[in-house]
């Protein structure tokens, strides 16, 4: 019991520190399957910890604290690194929003790690496998860290950790296709620009508030008089919005994404599509909703119109692009940009339904797209590439993998009984509530485009003739198939009953809108 309490207390730090240390130790795990086994263990453990962390956050409701004379319900868990007070030290802060993002990141990291074993063995030279898993784990540490930290500067540092490692991971696709190098370089340049913008934004916020602690930052911004007159604040918001949009690949700042996803090693594509851009969206939620305040950033600066425009164009243009691609990984990459459009749409609507839809879609899309990229990775593993012609006739040869891919595709379209339907249910409702019917049209046109780009692939999978390589192929090994099926299976489960995902997203949306709505009125 002692130990359990100790762990519970230090859990926020352990979630980051354990994989950080373990990741560095991965280098010494040998060159065979040691690094993989070790990483599976580590990420399994981290996943377990995030589940516990979620429980703790849920339990907060049950523990009202006496605050003077009134009872108040705490909304977050704070942890001070090294017990330094928040002005000097780094605070880790877990609330309803990031608890769930942590859970997704850790859960998907665990599944993709299990999945990655065979695929990495084939795609990455055996002399570099320990390095691959070190970098891999550090990426996940960075993503978890960004999510859990309550310190703005820390966000930037961890963002750089995750970005640099992601560039490395993408570049490791070079042994399969040299274009991975240019893809990585392109992302490096654009990603660095984005990160610098975020850093500048944080810097300006520091100038105004004199603190780097996010909670304090938010409080003093809310106390600010005449925020509309404050040019520093306006500039900070502008820098942050652009930088974050780049990181989450919002149209038209998505140019780095299609190549990066296409040429990265299969496992990396799965991990990135499911977690990296989602953490970008999380950062946007954190900065816009809890620090600067949605009223100011959306209504005073009227950025919401701009974001809605980008989101809508992203949905339409990128869904259209997805219809014209021949490489299936690229189809999914373009579709990812379109799906980010859906997420940002709900985010920028700034209503409870919209935010709930956005959060639901973060979860759903992570599962769907992660699962679909995994299925493609299995194809690459068996057939050698993932162009349309490579998938031809695989429906018979790899029934489980292709079944999962098809189910994921149906979910992208938004058929009922799949997770995509739930997202659309929320988002369309949010658009109607906001009285913006033209957004509904864009959303549905996007879905109809999705029918086309998904069905092109499905037709080839089930009606095409297998090519020579495919004829020799067979079902992927179970370490690849099982995680794929779990991901897609979960997405179907959350499509059949969204009581958990939907209920939790609604609660989180309510928390975000009521807790931080108060201040910063113009």
């Amino acid at each position, binding site marked *: 019991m002692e130990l359990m309490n100790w762990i519970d207390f230090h859990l926020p730090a352990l979630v980051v520190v354990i994989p950080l240390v373990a990741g560095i130790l991965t280098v010494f795990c040998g060159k065979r399957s040691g690094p993989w086994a070790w990483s599976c263990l580590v990420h399994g453990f981290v996943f377990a910890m995030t589940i516990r962390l979620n429980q703790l956050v849920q339990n907060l409701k049950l523990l009202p604290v006496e605050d003077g004379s009134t009872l108040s319900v705490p909304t977050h868990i704070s942890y001070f690194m090294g017990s330094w007070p928040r002005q000097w030290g780094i605070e880790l802060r877990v609330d309803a929003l990031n608890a769930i993002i942590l859970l997704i990141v850790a859960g998907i990291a665990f599944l993709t790690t299990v999945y990655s074993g065979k695929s990495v063995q084939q795609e990455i030279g055996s002399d570099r496998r320990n390095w691959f898993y070190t970098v891999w784990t550090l990426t996940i540490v960075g993503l978890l860290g960004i999510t859990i930290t309550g310190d703005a500067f820390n966000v930037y540092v961890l963002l750089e950790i995750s970005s640099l490692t992601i560039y490395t991971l993408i570049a490791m696709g070079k042994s399969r296709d040299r274009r991975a190098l240019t893809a990585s370089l392109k992302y490096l340049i654009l990603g660095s620009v984005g990160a610098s913008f975020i850093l500048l934004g944080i810097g300006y916020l520091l100038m105004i508030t004199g603190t780097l602690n996010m909670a304090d930052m938010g409080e003093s911004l809310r106390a600010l008089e005449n925020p509309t007159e404050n040019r520093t604040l306006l500039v900070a918001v502008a820098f942050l919005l652009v930088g974050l949009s780049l990181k989450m690949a919002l149209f038209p700042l998505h140019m780095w994404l299609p190549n990066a996803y296409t040429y990265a090693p299969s496992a990396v594509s799965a991990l990135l599509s499911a977690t990296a851009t989602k953490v970008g969206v999380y950062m946007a939620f954190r900065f816009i909703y809890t620090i600067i305040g949605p009223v100011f950033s959306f209504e005073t600066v009227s950025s919401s119109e701009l974001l809605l425009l980008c989101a809508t164009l992203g949905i339409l243009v990128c869904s259209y692009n997805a219809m014209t691609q021949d490489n299936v990984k690229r189809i999914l990459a373009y579709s990812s940009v379109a799906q980010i459009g859906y997420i940002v749409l709900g985010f920028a609507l700034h209503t409870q339904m919209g935010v709930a839809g956005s959060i639901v879609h973060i979860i759903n899309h992570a599962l769907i797209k992660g699962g679909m990229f995994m299925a493609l990775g299995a194809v690459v593993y068996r057939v050698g590439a993932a162009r349309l012609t490579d998938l031809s006739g695989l429906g018979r040869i790899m029934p489980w993998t292709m079944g999962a891919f098809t189910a994921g595709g*149906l979910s992208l*379209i*938004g*058929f*009922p*009984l799949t997770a995509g339907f*739930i997202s*659309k*249910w*929320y988002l*369309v*409702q949010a658009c*109607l*509530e906001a009285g913006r019917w033209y957004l*509904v049209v864009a959303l*549905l*046109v996007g*879905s*109809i485009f999705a*029918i086309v780009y998904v*069905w092109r692939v499905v*037709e080839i999978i089930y*009606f095409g003739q297998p090519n020579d390589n495919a004829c020799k192929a067979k079902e992927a090994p179970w370490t690849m198939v099982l995680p794929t099926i779990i991901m897609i299976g979960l997405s179907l489960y959350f499509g*059949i*009953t*969204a*009581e958990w995902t*939907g*209920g939790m997203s*609604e609660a989180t949306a309510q928390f975000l809108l009521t807790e931080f709505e108060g201040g910063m009125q113009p």
Partner: protein
Amino acid sequence: MIESGNPSLSLMTPLVGAAGIVLCGRLPNLREAVTLVTAALLFYFTMGLMPAALSGEAVRVELFEMVPGMPIVFQVEGLGMIYALIASGLWILNSLYSIGYMRGNQEKHQTRFYLCFAVAIFGAMGTAFAGNLFTLFVFYEVLTLSTFPLVTHKGNQNAIQGGRVYLGILASASIGLLFPALVWVHHAVGHVDFVLGGILSDAGLPNWSLALLFFLCVYGIAKAALMPLHRWLPAAMVAPTPVSALLHAVAVVKAGVFSVTKVSVYIFGYGTLGEFGGGDWLVYMAGFTIVTASFIALFQDNLKKRLAYSTVSQLSYILLAVGLWVTLGPDSEVGQFALIAAAVHIPAHAFGKITLFFAAGSIYTADHKTEVSQLKGIGRRMPWTMGAFAVGALAMIGAPPTSGFISKWFLLTGAWEAGSGFAITIIMISTLLNAAYFLPVLWQAFFCKEPEHHDDASSHGSHDHGEAPWPIVVALTGTALLAISLFFYPDWAVELARTLIQSQS
């Protein structure tokens, strides 16, 4: 025991059957036995719901909530009962027919075929008993997806092409039009339950929104095949004949018209529809479809294509009837006739059309003939088949003693009393056209001489074939008898349809 009027068993049965079919996949005889037993059980269970549907005191079965605040609900009522009865009842005969057809033509992937069939019936049952629009939408899509592998069963280029049109139109329409309508209703009213008399009357929507909403519903339910969204139906004729028969004469298309009727009666309700002239609009659109589709049918040489266009036209009879009902109003004695016509035409057309499809498939199985012009003299070789075909054709024309007469009687009465010259003209023209494209087939089959054969290679076996395998003959005779029996015993359908009205006034 499960209380009376609980449709759970009817929903479970096809799913359990589907599982059984997969398990017995390697033993064809056992697999087919499973299908037949499941179909029989399903019909039995569905019959058991009859008293509840007639008394209108069915229980509301609420399953889990799919989205918070949006449960999956089932409730038995008259209209759904009619649809469920024909879908489950004809599944028995259709399974029998499928066995003969699939074996006779040595089709591949028969396990997948029977599996998808069972799942499609599950979708049809869910649609029939849906207690709110949300549930209806979900099962409507289950039906769309589960029938796709059936349509593309042959797997050749034609099948792919047909499947593309089939899924493209149905899925785009339902996701692009019906889905926003569903969300809109939910947004405006706060729930989407089916309530007799409609739920939109208090929503305070302006007339133009109601009109748009109705438009979204009618075209979003593309399975009703209102022109110009009818192209999927002829495209789907690439499917094996049993699929065309049950799914495209019964389950799928009837899911369409059933859903439109259900939405009109239970979501919009008479008052709301009347306010913005939705009835008149529907009458004109349906009238246009009836006549145009019949004209196209006139020029189709492919027998199944001709039947498909005939279906497009016949479906719009039901929509026409719904439109007339709105124009007349629920209070008028005759307004009821139109609604009864809509409801009764569902089984009336189903029995007739499935017979026609069975006959077409029977000809194909016995002789591999698909075109109308090849049918000279076939009536002497296949008297049972062509006899049944004649019954089906009469049902389409609406001549006694067949089922089509009953619904046409109600429909004409309604149109007459409504003083709708347009509707009467449409019905008359359409009847003539029906006769014009069906009677020549019969004439050729029975009264023309079989042409002499010149080259044996292309028409091998056509000299000495007789009837199709016995399961096929039994099935099509059965459906022909059903078509006749509905003429003599229409009470069950009329009584069920009346429940829509009694509780209304």
